[in-house]
């Protein structure tokens, strides 16, 4: 995806807000993202059940006023588990995206601004890491260490740092040749000041937009690994484990699959709509012409 470094400057912040709220898809995305976020944060207040409380009397109960999304094979309230699953999903997303952003920015700027040999070395490492498919890499690592959420985050961070770093590196290299960087050198700006004051603000805008569109990918990876039993440890609720628990009873109780699957779909849609709208606003050259 092409990223423009000049895009962020073309409009003032105020008009960007207004433009965002004029896009129905963007607003829909924002609403979905907010709902998910609030659901995850306020989970204990939104439900009377504990996510792991077993109540065998309501085993596989259909949706009702007591159990909004029914209950699973152990009688746990599915709605509660979905809310708490959102916590896991967003926690993984927040940690892994921010860590990979941080790592990607750091390594990318070092590769783009530092000496040539260091750049070559880093690019070699990035390419080596990128050559593993994410899921295979995750399977390999988690088989060695045992399933845990931290491992999931680690795997995602390791595999996404090179993606961000390459983008940052390319941007940094083109900025390095720009006249304002030369001008900054001509007033004696050192490398650290140069990177955080002149390069970073020019790189970070497009990167944040990219990151917001990567969140659903990360959420999906977490759910997928949890579904396979390689993410969170049972009985912890995650959308993946909700799906896995429902999967065995799909003929009798399809709502378990719906309960696990719909939040995933909404998350993907929400963050994608929001990210795309942001990108369109900040990078007018990519705007679809109707």
């Amino acid at each position, binding site marked *: 995806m092409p990223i423009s470094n*000049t895009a*962020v*400057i*073309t409009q*003032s912040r105020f008009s960007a807000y207004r433009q965002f709220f004029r896009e129905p898809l963007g607003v829909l995305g924002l609403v979905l993202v907010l709902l998910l976020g609030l659901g995850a944060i306020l989970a204990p207040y939104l439900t009377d059940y504990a996510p792991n409380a077993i109540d065998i009397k309501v085993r596989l109960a259909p949706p009702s006023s007591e159990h909004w999304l029914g209950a699973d094979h152990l009688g746990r309230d599915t709605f509660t588990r979905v809310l708490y699953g959102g916590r896991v999903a967003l926690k993984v997303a927040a940690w892994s995206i921010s860590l990979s952003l941080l790592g990607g920015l750091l390594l990318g700027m070092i590769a783009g601004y530092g000496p040539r040999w260091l750049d070559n070395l880093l690019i070699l490492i990035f390419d080596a890491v990128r050559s593993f498919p994410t899921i295979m890499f995750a399977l390999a690592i988690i088989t060695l260490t045992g399933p845990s959420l931290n491992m999931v985050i680690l795997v995602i961070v390791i595999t996404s740092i090179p993606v961000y770093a390459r983008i940052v590196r390319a941007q940094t290299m083109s900025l390095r040749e*720009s*006249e*304002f960087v*030369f*001008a*900054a*050198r*001509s*007033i*004696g*700006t*050192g490398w650290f*000041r140069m990177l955080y*004051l*002149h390069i970073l*603000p*020019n790189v970070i*805008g497009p990167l944040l937009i990219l990151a917001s569109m990567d969140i659903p990918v990360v959420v999906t990876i977490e759910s997928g690994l949890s579904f396979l039993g390689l993410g969170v440890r049972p009985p912890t609720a995650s959308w993946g484990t909700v799906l896995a628990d429902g999967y065995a009873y799909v003929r009798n109780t399809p709502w378990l699959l719906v309960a696990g699957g719909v939040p995933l779909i909404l998350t993907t849609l929400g963050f994608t709509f929001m990210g795309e709208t942001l990108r369109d606003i900040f990078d007018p050259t990519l705007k679809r012409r109707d």
Partner: protein
Amino acid sequence: MEPVLSIKDLSVDFSTPTGPIHALRRVNLSVPQKRIVGIVGESGSGKSTVVSAVMRLLANNANVRGGEIYFEGRNIFTMKEKELRAMRGEDIAMVFQDPMTAQTPVLSVGQQMIDIQYRRSLPYKEKRQQAIEMLNRVGIPDADDRVDQYPHQFSGGMRQRISIAMALMMNPKLLIADEPTTALDVTLEAQIIHLFRELRKTFDGSIIVVSHNLGLIAELCDEVVVMYAGEVVERAPVDDIFYRAAHPYTRALLNCDPARLGELTQDLPTIPGEVPDLQKVPAGCIFSSRCAEDFDTCACQRPLMAAVTSAHEARCHLLSND
């Protein structure tokens, strides 16, 4: 008085895959205190290389083959990185050719001008006030409000004024203006020239103006250095250059200035021939292959700087043979 800047026998090569280009050869130049020195020459004559060498910000493939640059008596080639950085911006500041790219697009003009003062321990409010005063000084209207605007909210001429304000922010002893009007249209150019002349009254440092625009040089400078293919060919007070040019290249250059054409002509005058290949520098006078007045000595012997008057010298056999 001791000159602010003196360049002695500076030679710079650029290494390329096909061999080194001898971009500057034994360049001598000095900038007296409180004077404006113009460096004129066509593209590729080494004007900007001289300027980059003064800042010690030459491109990576440049090698300084010889010579020294003294700034206030200190040799900048022996300075440590820390001293160099302290010198840049504090003692020497630059104004660049293209005002549209010389400022960071994501920070407001005020933020950038406050940042320039990072070596000063002043409270934020005072730094901001300094920035506003400086913007006022270069003629930005409503500087109080506009200080918070971003570079793209200013026009090209305004941005060049801002560049000049930024360069003057630390009150440098030497201001280098590298083609300050080349990217501007004619009316803006006149405004910038006017601004520089206004600034002369209050700014007590020296200025180097690099340009191929003879009009700008004539308007602004006290002294002129004419460069051709990496050598200084003539150096003189501004009036001597324009009325009593001694070097055939300078005369040819003046004749080519469209602004000086007396009558309507179909064909604009040009200097015939091409700039010599600086990978294989000719043995004799660097200009001999294009010179209208060349004779047998020119092609085989390098002329020395010959004095015309005490302040005026040129590198030409016509002068030394007299």
